[in-house]
């Protein structure tokens, strides 16, 4: 007969501190995430050097320069990558740079098109003249390898299948040497492909990366080496960027929720450890 594992009941307060019911934990998290969305908390926001560097890199591109934005993310990381995409596109359009967008993810392609279309109206950007969306492109390696040498052939059509070669936005764009800035917004380690295949091919190219917060630590060595000019770290980075471009978006609004969720995790870890240390001291 199959035996069901028996769970012993906590005996005292210290043991109870180590065994809080998970339903309580889930409810607490739900409360701390949703509450600040209805009742915003005002908190000081310090811009990190990594975000500032990315902002400065885009600021240094002359008006009319050519920027490529790759939005390799999907609905799963929308909370972080969507405000990042919006903040970057807003800055590029504010600076009146020519913008080309594409994605290695089907969902990212749709998301980035929706965001860019909305911002284009706001900034008076004309499709085909000021910006273009190259759509979804599969297979990272082969696309990056060929865009280094021949951009018009690599992205011969836009997301709707229209030829891009004669679009005014593509004027003078032949290969990677004609690109001023590339920003990859991703929830994966795709930055390695960009660094390995693209970044070294144009010494003047500025490559920025916008990862999810959990991805950010592994990208620091590449910012030190200068291969990545700046990093926008998750939702926090997006909130900093929103501050730099003078706007209040989803990231700024979400900072209260993120803050309280972090505090909740820390408090719970401390409570669990207090119980653990007390139990251990009693045992010894």
């Amino acid at each position: 007969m199959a035996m069901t594992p028996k769970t012993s009941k906590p005996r005292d307060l210290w043991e109870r501190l180590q065994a809080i019911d998970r339903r309580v934990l889930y409810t607490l998290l739900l409360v701390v995430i949703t509450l600040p969305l209805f009742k915003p908390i005002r908190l000081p926001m310090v811009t990190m050097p990594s975000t500032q560097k990315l902002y400065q890199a885009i600021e240094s591109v002359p008006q009319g320069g050519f920027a490529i934005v790759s939005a390799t993310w999907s609905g799963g990381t929308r909370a972080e990558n969507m405000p990042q995409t919006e903040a970057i596109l807003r800055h590029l359009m504010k600076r009146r740079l020519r913008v080309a967008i594409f994605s290695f993810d089907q969902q990212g392609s749709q998301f980035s098109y929706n965001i860019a279309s909305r911002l284009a109206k706001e900034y008076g950007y004309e499709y085909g003249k000021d910006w273009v969306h190259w759509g979804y492109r599969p297979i990272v390696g082969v696309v990056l390898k060929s865009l280094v040498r021949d951009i018009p052939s690599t992205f011969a059509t836009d997301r709707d299948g229209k030829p891009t070669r004669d679009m005014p936005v593509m004027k003078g764009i032949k290969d990677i040497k004609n690109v001023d800035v590339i920003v990859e917004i991703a929830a994966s380690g795709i930055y390695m492909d960009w660094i390995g295949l693209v970044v070294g091919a144009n010494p003047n190219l500025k490559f920025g990366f916008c990862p999810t917060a959990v991805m950010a630590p592994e990208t620091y060595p590449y910012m030190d080496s200068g291969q990545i000019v700046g990093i926008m770290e998750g939702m926090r980075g997006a909130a900093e960027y929103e501050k730099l471009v003078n706007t209040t978006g989803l990231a700024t609004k979400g900072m209260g929720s993120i803050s309280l969720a972090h505090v909740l995790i820390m408090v719970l870890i401390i409570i669990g450890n207090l119980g653990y240390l007390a139990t251990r001291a009693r045992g010894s």
Partner: protein
Amino acid sequence: MLEPIVRFFAPKPLSVLPYYVVGAVLFSILVIIVLINLPSRARKPLIAIVTFLAGLFYATEFFWPIDIATNKNFLTDYLVPASKLGSLLGGMTLTLGILSLLRVHGRNIARLRSGWYNSLALLTAMVAMVIFGLIDKYGTDATAKKVFNVLFEGMLINMDATMFSLIAFYIVSASYRAFRIRSIEATILMVTAFLVMLGQVPIGNALTDWLPKDGWIASLRVENVKQWILSQVNAAALRAIAFGLGVGGLAISLRIWLSLERGAYFEKEI
């Protein structure tokens, strides 16, 4: 020499596109049939030759000196057609994946196996997405386009976000239960994690906001401590890991390129 290839792969008008699609499908089926019917002893050398030639192409194109005037070598012009060929192969693997799904879940439905309704939901969703996706891309029917919008933006994207957001709840539960300071190393790890977490959110910044922003004392602000941990301690460790991964990746690439790799996917009789 390249012109016919470039012309063949150039975007096609909608009037002739279906013929090209049907032609590509028939050609793919023909290639797959030929490959399946190849004698077993001929398949391995064929795969080894194709792998070697593909690797040789990219390696030679990368290392061969370029003509300064044109910024190209004799292989550069073939890069774009090669990338298109790569995309086509990716498309074929997707087809194989779909065929595999149809076979496995179709059998579940036909035999009314346990959970057959899940298989039915999967196949229905897949077929609906393909049909309405094609209409959205090439058709004009407004209702079908709205249906695709509901399926893609209303359902798929939100379900994806829902699945991912569940992780937050598991992280809270797991970190509370598993993170115990059983040793000095675990204590250091926890203190470091706390500092990075506090530095990552504005509420952490608020804790040390009273400290001056300039001078040596500013180094004690939590966001600066976090930045130091990430850019100095963390970056140094990651550099070492990345170096090891790079060397390992090079070795594995060479083994695959030269068909020396053994183990899963390589030794099994195909």
